[in-house]
């Protein structure tokens, strides 16, 4: 069953986007990326270090054929985000950008108003913008309206692993926008990713849940499977919930033995 999806000009079969930060080692990072089945991975732009160690990351990802999604992590203003996106395009040769405009260092939550302004500016500059946003359906719709290639609402604050705090908002967002909905931040374990897909989201972006697991490679594989499972379950259509019990096995044709019970056995 082919089930590809498009984000901007990319067509992807995997619905897992994976971050590259916080892994025990680069070897484990590359194994985790492979185990997850991801095709699109996030990177940050930072000052080159004499060691040049980061060069290895870039080459390592490109050689392995991953599409890169540079982020604007650490940006608190529209200007910072736009400049960072321009530098990322220059360095990595991609129009894709994960737009993050953070409101403050305490909550690390996105600044909805500045994110919309930055998104609108970047779209005009020819970027394919994937904005990190809160789970407000109104802000998500505005981001779609200004031309973003997708919207990326959070499940819970970044790094908390609290899972999907507000499923109702995610389904509202899914029903309000026509672009892909990618759940970004807050996923804690495999079932959270499955739930995101069951709510109708198109993909999941993960980092800490995988990188900080005791076994990042196993967790990456778990996430890849969970996302497929949730996607399939959504498309299959769940059996209706009901308040009262209903037998799976039919009573028809049941044998009659009760007559033979001694009274003491009767319940």
């Amino acid at each position, binding site marked *: 069953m082919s089930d590809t999806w498009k984000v901007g000009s990319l067509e992807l079969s995997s619905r897992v986007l994976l971050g590259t*930060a916080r892994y025990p080692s680069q070897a484990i990072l590359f194994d985790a990326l492979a185990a997850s089945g991801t095709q699109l991975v996030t990177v940050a732009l930072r000052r080159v270090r004499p060691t040049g160690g980061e060069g290895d*990351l870039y080459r390592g990802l490109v050689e392995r054929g991953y599409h890169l999604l540079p982020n604007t992590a650490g940006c608190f203003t529209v200007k910072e985000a736009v400049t960072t996106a321009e530098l990322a395009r220059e*360095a990595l040769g991609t129009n894709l950008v994960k737009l993050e405009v953070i409101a403050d260092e305490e909550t690390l939550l996105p600044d909805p108003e500045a994110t919309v302004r930055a998104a609108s500016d970047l779209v005009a500059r020819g970027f394919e913008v994937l904005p990190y946003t809160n789970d407000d359906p109104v802000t998500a719709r505005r981001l779609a309206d200004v031309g973003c290639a997708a919207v990326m609402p959070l499940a819970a604050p970044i790094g908390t692993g609290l899972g999907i705090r507000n499923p109702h908002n995610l389904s509202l967002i899914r029903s309000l926008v026509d672009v892909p909905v990618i759940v970004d931040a807050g996923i804690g374990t495999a079932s959270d990713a499955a739930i995101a897909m069951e709510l109708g989201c198109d993909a999941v972006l993960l980092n800490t849940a995988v990188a900080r697991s005791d076994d990042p490679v196993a967790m990456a594989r778990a996430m890849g499977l969970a996302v497929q499972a949730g996607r399939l379950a959504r498309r299959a259509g769940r059996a209706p919930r009901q308040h009262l019990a209903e037998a799976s096995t039919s009573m028809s044709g049941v044998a009659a033995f009760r007559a033979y019970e001694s009274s003491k056995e009767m319940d």
Partner: protein
Amino acid sequence: MNVVVNGEPVVLEEPCSVEQVVRRVTAATEGVAVAVNGEVVRRAAWATALQPDDEVEILVATAGG
């Protein structure tokens, strides 16, 4: 000539192009981008000469979420 490269003061002999200052910190020929005084300097313009007190940012892709 005094400039600032990735936040560190550096003394350069004039003239010094963007490309030359990039080479001081990395041999990477791809995956690198440069901003001078907050403006992107596209690869095609790396021959441009730096001016005294320029603030140069030389960035590469690194681990990010």
